[in-house]
């Protein structure tokens, strides 16, 4: 079995390096095929491991080699595949495989086809390190690795220039890439501090040893570690207030958005909380905070999705919102529920994004939904796929989202945190509304795209086939809930609903489905017949403007952080470094020179002036010596 661990881990690396060999060459179709095959190999190895662990119930661990040894710190490249890891690996490689195959279609006419695949596979490799490592520093390698790959891929079309838009100060792929990287780094500092705390208190960073000795730590220390690690999670999973990068990350190619910014990387934070469940279950107050923040992000992000016109940004906000759901579940201690939603979400959200990719291709990269409409006719399959994904996202029976989201709501109800339950419940309605607003605006109503002069076309058959696994999973994954629970609760704590909740389940389900359906129906009446814009409303309405401008947060960040930092930097350089520090040094040098120049005048060759100096010197010496005598 150990070999499968290595295959699953290193096949993506081989894939990335292979593609990198041709990075500067024009498109080679073989690169796309070979990388896709290697990722599928990794998928098969992951599935084999999943089945193996299912059979034996035991984790597979391997240690590759030493990494950092200094003082008492001893860190190895160690990997362990347990139930949680196996699920993560399978989800990651499955979505990656689909996206790799799909990218052959999506990127077919891109100048840097080969380079794209190199980055994409490198991302998969980093993600595998992240989920497979058996220690916190190994996780951190993957953590930073996915960050860099995300930077490379958001900025993939690096040669586009900065464009000023009304919503964002100035944005381009390279700008968005830097924003994402730097914002993640802020969070990574928190994570690093958490790692330091663990090391100095427990002397190790290995999960198994750390979690076995948590009881030796004071409660305050546990809280500190829990908060520090969660700050790290907030960056990767784009939780408020570090959320702005995710929407801007949509500047990257759409397959990237599907893989990195929907299905896998952004769920790393949730994975971290699930992984550290022995820690978080001992500090319920931090858990509660996580749940509240998650709930807030769920409704906060959903509200922005309600009005956005940008096809990809709507999905990005919806991702943000769903991450909030996952954190709500994890924070409340329902770890397997969070993991279940993570997996289900990965499938249907990736499907939704890839579908959006088809639409973008058909529309020649136009993203404004106000300029689409009626695409159902030309793009039957894409419509079907996106419909399935939206139904799953809205939580309609029998789609995957129904099972996973309902369980989160049940858990919130079960914990008697009715506030959280209510907000999440309401957000379910918003989710259904904006999802179907999108579906109706893109695929139904009047064909507004004629003005652009584009002739929409369906994606190539193999691209559509590549999407099929995700569609199937979005459809049937929910029915595996029982198996899933049985499998992962061998590792994660079981979360049982109380009897009271069991009684209420039917009512809860009906209530939740009702609000979801309401959302869909409202969207149907408002958008399926065609777009009726109310320009007066768009201009004047305060709430609408608040939402379309993302609560003015990007502008606020620009004004309170980016700009002052830049100005302060200028001051530090020009005013302080040059005018004070350096001028001080030169001042000392000049003072010495002036003193020399001045004292040189004494030596003017005039005997009488020499005598005057002598007398002056004599007087000074006498006075000084007299004074010292008197003082003594």
């Amino acid at each position, binding site marked *: 079995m150990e070999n499968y661990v290595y295959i699953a881990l290193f096949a993506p690396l081989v894939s990335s390096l292979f593609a990198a060999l041709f990075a500067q060459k024009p498109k080679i179709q073989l690169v796309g095929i070979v990388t896709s095959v290697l990722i599928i190999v990794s998928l098969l190895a992951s599935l084999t491991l999943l089945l193996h662990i299912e059979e034996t119930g035991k984790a597979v661990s391997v240690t590759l080699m030493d990494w950092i040894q200094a003082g008492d710190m001893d860190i190895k490249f160690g990997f362990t595949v347990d139930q949680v890891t196996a699920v993560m690996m399978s989800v990651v490689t499955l979505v990656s495989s689909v996206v790799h195959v799909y990218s052959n279609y999506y990127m077919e006419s891109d100048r840097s086809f080969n380079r794209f695949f190199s980055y994409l596979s490198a991302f998969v490799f980093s993600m595998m390190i992240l989920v497979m490592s058996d220690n916190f520093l190994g996780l951190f390698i993957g953590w930073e690795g996915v960050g860099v790959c995300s930077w490379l891929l958001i900025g993939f079309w690096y040669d586009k220039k900065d464009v000023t838009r009304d919503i964002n100060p100035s944005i381009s792929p390279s700008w968005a890439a830097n924003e994402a990287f730097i914002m993640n780094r802020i969070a990574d500092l928190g994570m690093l501090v958490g790692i330091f705390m663990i090391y100095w208190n427990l002397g190790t960073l290995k999960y198994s040893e750390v979690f076995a000795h948590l009881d030796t730590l004071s409660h305050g220390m546990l809280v500190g570690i829990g908060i520090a690690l969660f700050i790290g999670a907030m960056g990767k999973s784009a939780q408020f207030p570090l959320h702005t990068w995710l929407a801007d990350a949509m500047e990257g190619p759409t397959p990237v958005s599907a893989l990195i910014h929907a299905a896998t990387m952004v769920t790393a934070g949730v994975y971290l909380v699930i992984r550290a469940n022995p820690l978080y279950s001992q500090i319920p107050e931090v858990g509660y905070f996580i749940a509240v923040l998650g709930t807030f992000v769920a409704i906060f992000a959903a509200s922005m999705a309600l009005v956005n016109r940008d096809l990809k940004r709507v999905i990005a906000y919806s991702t943000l919102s769903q991450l909030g759901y996952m954190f709500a579940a994890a924070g409340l201690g329902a770890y397997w529920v969070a993991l279940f939603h993570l997996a289900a979400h990965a499938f249907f959200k990736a499907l939704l994004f890839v579908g959006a990719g088809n639409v973008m291709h058909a529309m020649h990269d136009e993203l404004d939904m106000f300029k689409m409409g009626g695409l159902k006719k030309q793009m039957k399959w894409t419509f079907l796929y996106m419909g399935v994904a939206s139904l799953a996202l809205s939580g309609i029976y029998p789609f995957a989202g129904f099972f996973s989201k309902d369980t989160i709501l049940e858990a919130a109800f079960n914990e008697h945190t009715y506030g959280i339950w209510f907000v999440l419940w309401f957000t379910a309605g918003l989710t259904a509304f904006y999802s179907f607003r999108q579906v109706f605006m893109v695929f139904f109503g009047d064909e507004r795209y004629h003005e652009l002069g584009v002739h929409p076309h369906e994606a190539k058959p193999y691209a559509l086939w590549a999407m099929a696994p995700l569609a199937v999973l979005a459809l049937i994954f929910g029915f595996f809930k029982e198996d899933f629970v049985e499998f992962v609760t061998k590792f994660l704590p079981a979360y049982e609903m109380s009897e009271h909740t069991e009684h209420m389940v039917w009512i809860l389900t009906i209530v939740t489905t009702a609000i979801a359906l309401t959302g869909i129906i409202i969207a149907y009446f408002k958008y399926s017949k065609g777009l009726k814009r109310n320009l007066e409303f768009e201009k004047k309405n305060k709430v609408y403007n608040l939402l379309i401008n993302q609560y003015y947060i990007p502008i606020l960040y620009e004004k309170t952080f980016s700009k002052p930092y830049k100005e302060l930097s200028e001051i530090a350089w020009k005013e302080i470094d040059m005018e004070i*520090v350096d001028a001080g040094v030169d001042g000392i040098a000049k003072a010495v020179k002036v003193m020399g120049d001045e004292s040189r005048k004494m030596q003017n060759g005039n005997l009488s002036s020499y005598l005057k100096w002598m007398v002056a010197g004599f007087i000074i010496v006498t006075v000084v010596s007299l004074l010292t005598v008197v003082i003594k």
Partner: protein
Amino acid sequence: MSNILTLLIFFPLIAAIFGFFVNKNSIRVYGIAVSAAEFLLSLWLWKSYDSAQAGFQFVEKMPLIPDFGISYYLGVDGISLFIVIMATLMTMIGIIALSVKDGLKNLIITLLFLEVAMVGVFVSLDVILFYVFWEFSLVPMLYIIGAWGGSKRVYAAIKFFIYTFAGSLVMLVGILYLAYLYYTTTGVWSFSLTDWYALLLPMTVQKYLFWAFFLGFAIKVPMFPFHTWLPYAHGQAPTVGSVILAAVLLKMGSYGFVRFSLPLFPDASVAYITPVAVIAIIMIIYTAMVAYAQKDMKQVIAYSSISHMGVIIIGTFAMNAEGISGSIFQMLSHGIVSGALFMLVGVIYDRRHTKLMSEFGGLAKVMPTYATIFVIMTMASVGLPLTIGFIGEYLSLAGFFKVSPLMTVIAGTSIIVGAVYMLSLVKKSFFGPVTNPENEKLKDLDSKELWALIPLVAIVVWLGIYPKPVLGPINNSTKALVQLMHNKAQTPEAKKIILVSKKAKEAK
């Protein structure tokens, strides 16, 4: 071979003198051959070095002025070994990448003299010998900046010389006073560092001496507010000068802290952790901001050097093996990475004769290989795991966390502010459309430049993934150093803060 250290010092010296008689046309080959031989010699040193031993090896001792206890005393341990190798490596690579046409012969000879001084500083165990090499290193650098530099080269060269020289003089006073103390305590004169290590100094004396040495080292590092000579020196120096200045000469200061300040004045070092750390934090954040404000590519790298040196200082004053090993590793990592970055800036300067970022934009499209290597070095510079830059930064911060969590968090912003100025540099120069028509036809890296840069890329990745061959010996010697400091410590505070590794304790 027992005289390998002598050979390492004198081979470039003799080769430099011999170089005067070499024909102008073959001087490049000669320079590469000599520096390559010297580099191989240093690799041989590494091969013969016994990693399991923590103490000084290849020790040579020969009295020079016996009446004053001055001797020709050499030796290396894990702390100095790799800095020596880095010095020979960067000299070789600097010579390979030379694009200077005028006075090439003199430049190469000067570089070989500089190599003598650099190797000498790091292998000297006699303090007078150390001081001689320390000061001698200024002379070739003065020439390199003053003769081959930019338009304000004379100002920059003199500023560099006088500033660092002034600091060293204060250190010299400290050295002489310490020797006198040794004489009054033991009755014999000695300038051997290992003899001095045995000296137990009263706290009041330690405090004065600490600051005397501090001034010498701090100007060299350079630490805030003594850093302003550096941007001028880098701004005016030719590429090879900047490479060696950043890679090796700055390390003399940080090496001095590890070799002298910590073991000689352990109590004072512990007592002054806070002021030193505050200066280091100012270096990290303030110079990172100054770097962000720069318009000139080379100045960004120059100021980033100061910021990274701040992390090294933080690690040194962690007073535990984690932090000190990390700081020494970070010295190597910074040497390789900033050396490579300066070389990369030199590449574009050779083509465009400007270093202003506003002149560029979209270079990634025109020079893809160049951009790739630049991005790899950028990632190493911002401390990405699995590159060389991560390990030192991580260990330095981790080590200091034990001393002060709060200050570590503030110093840790290094990973954020470092990303800000480096990524903004990359964006301004490499991304976006090609706006300046002069950039449209730029040549990508040629074979000479690739020969210089690819080995550095290889080292960045290799030591990022498998640092053990280097970190192991460093760690061994560091543990012994910490043990020595702990044994010598007199104040209860120092006993508590100087943290001996558990593994070192168990081994006893």
